[in-house]
Every structure is written in C-alpha cells, then in structure tokens.
C-alpha cells in the first residue's frame, strides 16, 4: 500500500513537470509570440528589443529559460508578468485564490445539500410521479451550459427584473472580500453560487439516487429493515452513509478541478477576479509567466485530488491494480 502511495505521488510530480514543460514549449512554438516585443512597448527600435531580450534572459537557450522561470516562480518568487511588470505572479495567485475558494465552497455547500435532498426525495418517492420529475429537473440542470445560465441570470437580475422587489438587492457584478464586508460578499456571490451549483446538483442527485437504489438490496440494509428500524431511519442512517463514499470521492475530484481555476466560465461571466479569470486573461494576452503559474496551480489541485481519490479507492477496493 505504501509503495502504491509513493508511486502515485511520484507520478504526480512527473505529470506536473511534463505539463509545465509542454506549456513552455507550446508558448515558444507559437509564431508571432515574442515576449521581448511584448515587454518593449509600442515602437521600440530593434536595439531596444535586443536590450530587453538580454535583460530578461530571453536570448538564452530554452532549457535555461525554463529553469530560470521555475527558479523565479518557486525559489525567489519574484516572477513578473510580461504584460505588467509591476504584477508579481505569486502574489497575484495568492490574492485571487480566496475568490475561488469563496465561490467554490459556497457552491459546494449548495450542491451537496441540494443533491442530497433531491436524491433522497427521489428514492423515498420512487414509484410516484415525483421521482421521474426530480430526475428530469436534474437532467435539465446538467444540460445547461454554465456560461449561458450565467448570462441569463445576469439578464434577469441585473437588467430585466433588477428594478423589482425580487432582484433589487442584487449588487453589480464583481467581488467584495469576506474580510472587508461579509454581507456584501454574500450578496455578490449568491447568484454565482446558484449558477455554478445547478449542474452539480443535477449530477450528484442522479449519482446518489442510483447508488441508493443499488444499496437497497444489500444484505445489511435488509437486516436493518428486518430488525424493525423505520424506513426513514434505514435510509438516512445506513443507506445514505454507504452511498456517500462514491459521492465524497466524486466531490473530491470536482472540488479540485474547480478550486484550481476550473470555474473559469462562471468567473468570466460574473466578473469574479479569481484564478479562473486570471487564467483566462493571461491566456488571451498570451502572458507566459502568469499562464505558467495558473497552469501549475490548477494542475496541482487536479492531480493531487485525483491521486488522493485513487489512494482512497485502493484502500477500499484492493482489486484495483495500481497503474
């Protein structure tokens, strides 16, 4: 088991390394991309470009440049953006991360509560019209593009119904930090939370329902019933607990992806200055230092969560052959 854990974590480091190298190579293989030109301003002379190239070490071989960038990112931590040289990359990420955590944790609370309620209701009322109805609602949730849902939410809450009592409380797009004004923080994030969680509520409710139905026929549930426990008690205490194993591991993966900048579309639509928006902006501006940092940040969360889930699964189910 320990060997598996070590191998899995070593694999993680290899994957992270490969991703950064690939990102770096893709960037320098893109024609027209000339960081020294980006750095030198509007109409530099060829001499200025050469000077900038030298000053930023861009005239050195690729492996050296890669090593220098990694050194400035991880060791001296003073890597700056090509677009704005006052923008230090590491503080930019650390100041954007709380936005992602606010967004994702809030949405996660909604989707965990929402999906459990929906899943349990569907199973409880299996056979009645409520079950298929709930599952259709869940499917609709899964079928909506999140950026489109966000746009429609904006249209309604910021414009069409903004002057009615329903949505007059909705603040303008953007973000207020929790530390500066908790109430505004909450108001700013409420619509984004709902928008982001719709998809996951639908998805998790379906998974949970399927799992609950599967567990229903297991021996220990039958035993519990035979002991005369009330159906509700059996459902909530025994079945739900077992079903949540799948639920939690899925949750781990999704949470990792989202916190690592995967909520990019939601952040773009609602103008939330998180890592996702930072990633998007740096991509559009092809600003390599920021791209590198956000890619590493995102990949770290994704791979570590994936490794954790693998490890937990290997513990639970020894049949899984470590690969």
């Amino acid at each position, binding site marked *: 088991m320990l060997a598996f854990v070590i191998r899995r974590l070593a*694999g*993680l480091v*290899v*994957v*992270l390394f490969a*991703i950064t190298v*690939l*990102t770096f190579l*893709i*960037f320098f*293989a*893109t*024609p*027209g*991309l000339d960081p020294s030109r980006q750095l030198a301003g509007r109409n530099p002379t060829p001499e200025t470009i050469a000077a900038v190239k030298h000053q930023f070490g861009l005239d050195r071989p690729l492996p050296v440049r890669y090593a220098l960038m990694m050194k400035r990112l991880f060791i001296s931590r003073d890597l700056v953006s090509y677009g704005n040289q006052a923008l230090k990359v590491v503080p930019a990420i650390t100041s954007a991360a709380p936005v992602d955590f606010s967004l994702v944790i809030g949405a996660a609370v909604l989707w965990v509560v929402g999906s459990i309620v929906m899943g349990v209701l569907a199973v409880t009322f299996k056979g009645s019209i409520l079950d*298929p109805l709930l599952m259709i609602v869940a*499917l*609709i949730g*899964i*079928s*909506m*593009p*999140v*950026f*489109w849902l966000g*746009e*429609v939410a*904006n*249209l309604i809450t910021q*414009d*069409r119904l903004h002057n009615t009592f329903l949505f007059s409380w909705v603040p303008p797009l953007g973000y207020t930090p929790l530390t500066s004004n908790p109430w505004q923080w909450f108001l700013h994030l409420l619509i984004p939370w709902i928008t982001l969680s719709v*998809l996951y509520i639908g*998805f998790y409710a*379906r998974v949970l329902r*399927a799992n609950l139905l599967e567990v229903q026929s297991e021996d220990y549930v039958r035993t519990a019933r035979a002991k005369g426990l009330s159906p509700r008690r059996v459902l909530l205490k025994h079945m739900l607990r077992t079903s949540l194993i*799948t639920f939690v*591991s*899925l949750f781990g*993966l*999704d949470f990792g992806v989202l916190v690592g900048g995967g909520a*990019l*579309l939601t952040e*773009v639509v609602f103008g939330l200055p998180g890592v996702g928006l930072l*990633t*998007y902006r740096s*991509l*559009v501006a*092809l600003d390599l230092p920021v*791209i590198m940092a956000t*890619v590493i940040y*995102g*990949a770290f969360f*994704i*791979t570590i969560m*994936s490794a954790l*889930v693998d490890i937990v*699964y290997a513990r639970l189910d020894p049949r*899984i*052959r470590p*690969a």
Partner: protein
Amino acid sequence: MAEFAYEPGPEVQLAAGESAKEISGRSPWRIAGRRLVRNRLAMASLVLFVLVVAVSLLAPFYAHHLAHTDPFTSNLSGTTVVNGKRVDVIQQGGGLLGLGEVPIRPTWRSNYFMGADNQGRDVMARVLYGGRSSLQIGVASAVICCVLALALGLIAGFFGGWVDAGLSRLMDLVWAFPVYLLAISLATVLLTKPGGLKWGPVTVDPASLWVPTLIIAVIYIPYVYRPVRGQVLSVREKEYVEAAVSQGASNLRLMFSDILPNVISTAIVLLPLMIATTILTESALSFLGIGVQAPNASWGTVIGDGQALLYTRPLVAIAPGVMIVLTVLALNVLGDGVRDALDPRAKVRVRE
C-alpha cells in the same frame, strides 16, 4: 465535471416488466433494441434529437429560400421590409445623445425572424447553421474520442506492465492539461502558418471544424479510457480468454475477436452521454472565442456574439442556448435509455 463510468452487470438481466420468455434465445443487441423502443421517454428524446438535426440541416433552405441572406457576411448597411416599410437592419441609437447602433428586433417573419446580430446578420440563420457545426463537432469528437479511448484502453489493459503505466500517466497528463491554452495556441499556430498546417497529405485549414473537434476528442479520452481499461483487465481473466490463450491465439486475435466485442458496449453506452458533453464543451470554447472561428458559426459563437447585445437584444444569446439545452437534454435522456436497455442493472460508478 466527473463523468459517468459504466460497469456492466454480469450477464443479460431482466428489466422491470420483462418476462424471461421475451429475452430467451435472443442476442443481447436485439434485446437491447427492443427495450429501447419500449422506453417512451428515450424514444421521445430520440425524436427531439432527430428534429434538432433535421432543423439544422434545413439551414441552407431557410437562408437561401426564405430569408435570402448570407449568414456569414456582415450586412451593416442592409435594409429589410417590415410592415411594408423599408427599415435599416442596423439602426442608430436613439435618446438625447444618439450613441451606439442597435440591430433590428425580431420580425417574426420569413427574414430576420429572430432579428439581427451586431453585424446585421440574420440570427435565425446563424442559429441554424450554428447547429450544424455544433452537432457535427459534437458527434465527430465523441466518436473519435471513443475509438481512440477503446484502442488505448485495449492496449493498456491487454499488455499491462510498463505500457499500462505509461499510458495511464499520459492520461493523467491529458486530464490535467490546460484545455484552453491548448485551444488558443493551436488556433494561433494554425492561423499564423501560411496555408494552414500540413501533415503529409492532410492539410488543416484554420477555419476547419476539425480543429475544435480534435481538441475536444483528445481531452475526453481519459474519461472513456479508464472504464475501458478496467473492463479489459477483468475480461482478460475470464475463462474463455484463458482458453483462447492456451490454444495459442495471437495477441491481435485475442484483442479483436475475444476482448473487443466485450468492451465495445461500454463505449456505445457512453456515446450519447459523450456527445452531450462534447457539445457543451464546444459551446464553451466557442463562447470564449477559441473554438469555431469566425465567420463560421456554432451555438457557442452566437451566444458569444449575443453577449454584447444581452440587454438590448437578449434573444441573440438566448436562442442558441435553448437549442443547446434541448439537444443535450435529449442526448442525456437517450443515453440513460441506451444504458438501461443494454443492461438494466448497470451501475453508475465513479471513474477509477
């Protein structure tokens, strides 16, 4: 979003309301077909999907014969007739200052049925043509993805050892790789290379729909690869495979005639769900401007165009979104139906 993985039950099972007689002696595929046809919800969604496809295929008919417009060329100075009056397609903003320009409202008539976009193009025609691109990319990338994932999963599961380990790390890499960066750089590379990219006889035009198709196909390989690999591992241990090995069957024969037929149902079950996912992904990429390239349209690009008109002409962004929801919903319901039909006891499982 984590994906469904599919793990088939042991043998052909009875579905609810089905008698043993009905399935005895029939091939599993025929049984599945019967079950699918009986599933009313799945059939309704199939009809809906076919309808969306049919409507999208009618795009040229609407554009050329009803609306008489070219949805790919801007028509800024164009005019049209509404209620017997000739009006500009793009009209100057009103108010005290007269700032800005506003496209024409939906006319609910044969041309500019849903109004115009920022460039005076017929939104209805754009949505219909957009559907063609979105569907084409969605279906093609899902199929390519499943085929590649089947091949890789077969190889990894069959050979095991370092081949398996290497492929699995590669899948980790693909999974954690920044999709958007890949899309942006690939689009840039293609656009800036004079004459497009050439690989031997294949030339990829930057405006080609194959670019987003291939990008999307590649990024979803790990989702299908993992369940396929797991299944190959378990099929390999089965007696009939062992028997074939002992009879001296070649690797290729083993893979193709003994193992492949057993895992292919996994890919088929996943296919409608994959198409649903790839359509959503395509729309996201195109919305961000890194999927389908102008002047081509897809549902995502039309939503992107509509973003700047959201408060004045919301229909431009809403209409293609509704099309996406309908299509993806139909595919999801159909996917459920196919899964239930092939194996009523199939489990929804976390990716391993």
